[in-house]
């Protein structure tokens, strides 16, 4: 059995499409609609047990892509309906615009992540005034009635929808150490130095954490990171040493973990 776990790889159809196209960007003349469509469909294939709502989104984009590909395979036909042709072009432009928007906010998210990481290193003082001033602060219960306490209680007791945080639409995707390496290669250069605990704080599954750890060992073996553990069982410091240039994941040879 190969190592396969759920990891959020693609956040949505645009995310996937962006990834597939930009992956081919290495040589721009190699970028091929045909290959992208095939890869896109292959990815959908992998999401077999996918949430229906999410599947719809992916399939909508797939339909557009297939249409584009079909049109491309039949160039220069005279009997093409001009309206259909125009509509297809419009759809293509729309898709392009959405991809650009998606990419824009992905880049913003990268900056946000960096800002938050920097801000997280400082801790605010929230201690408040000491007991010398107790009794001075205004009464918070002013205007609050038993009825409002009652309503607040009801609100608190309403079962909250379980936060199926972000994983729900990608959960069925099988991922591997290779995918974890790809994620880390994207994330670590931005983080610079980070602890293993922080690096895995967003992960819910034990297996995901293990796979991330194996991916780190892989990167360590490749000399792209340094690992430091100050005490036994202490948190592990991860330091990216691979430089700031984007790393082609394909260039990293990864051992298969078969079990």
């Amino acid at each position, binding site marked *: 059995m190969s190592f396969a776990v759920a990891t959020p790889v693609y956040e949505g159809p645009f995310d996937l499409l962006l990834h597939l196209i930009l992956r081919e960007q290495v040589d721009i003349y190699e970028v091929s609609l045909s290959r992208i469509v095939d890869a896109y469909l292959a990815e959908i294939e992998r999401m077999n047990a996918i949430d229906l709502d999410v599947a719809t989104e992916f399939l909508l984009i797939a339909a557009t892509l297939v249409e584009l590909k079909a049109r491309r395979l039949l160039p220069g036909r005279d009997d093409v309906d001009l309206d259909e042709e125009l509509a297809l072009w419009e759809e293509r432009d729309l898709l392009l615009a959405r991809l650009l928007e998606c990419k824009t906010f992905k880049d913003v998210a990268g900056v946000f992540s960096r800002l938050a990481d920097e801000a997280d290193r400082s801790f605010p003082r929230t201690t408040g005034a000491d007991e010398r001033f107790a009794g*001075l602060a205004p*009464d*918070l219960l002013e205007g609050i009635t038993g009825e*409002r306490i009652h309503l*607040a*209680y009801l609100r608190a007791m309403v079962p909250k929808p379980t936060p199926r945080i972000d994983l729900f639409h990608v959960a069925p995707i099988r991922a591997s150490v290779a995918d974890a390496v790809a994620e880390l290669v994207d994330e670590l250069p931005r983080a610079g130095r980070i602890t293993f605990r922080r690096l895995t704080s967003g992960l819910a599954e034990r297996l995901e954490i293990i796979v991330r750890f194996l991916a780190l060992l892989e990167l360590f073996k490749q000399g792209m990171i340094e690992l430091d553990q100050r005490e036994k069982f202490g948190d592990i410091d991860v330091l990216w040493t691979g430089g700031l240039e984007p790393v082609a994941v394909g260039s990293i040879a990864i051992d298969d973990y078969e079990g």
Partner: protein
Amino acid sequence: MSNERIDAETVRAIEAIVMVAVEPVAPDLLAQLLEQPTAVIERLCNELAAAYDEAGHGFELVRVAGGYRYQSHADLAPYVERFLLDGQRARMSAAALETLAIIAYKQPLSRAQIASIRGVDPDAVLRTLQARGYITEVDRDTGPGQAILYGTTTSFLEKLGLNSLGDLPPIADFVPSADVVEALEQGLRIDAPAPDAAT
């Protein structure tokens, strides 16, 4: 020289830790965290307090029962009082109100029980409510952890104009859905436009 460098770093770490601490920080704890003898920590804190004093800062580092803490300088109390009276918004957060309501109806209960109902760590809220005198530690759990059990205070009842907890509106066994609660609340706002309805 090397010793001075170590001291300087230790002093900065003391400043950082005491600055963000909610409670006074015991010298023993600082000693342990900074891997220095307690005597060294105490000497450095004394020197630090004297240096603040000398520089005429508006705050001081003082040693109280539990350890070291920052506080506003005594001679600036009038400004601090003015700030606390006028400057701070008197507004109970939704989180605080919900936590207070849970305690009011389910007391006595532990921090962990509150956390499991609200789904978030209630520590900061509990501290606020306790500092305000709305809740208090009423008991200890008999279980292994001997967790603190919280309950509301008489001051809470007085502020709400209630004679006893029995005067709180009764709760049904079933819990209504979120939109029912919202509708109830909307209805309440229309019936009685309380002064705080706008907030």
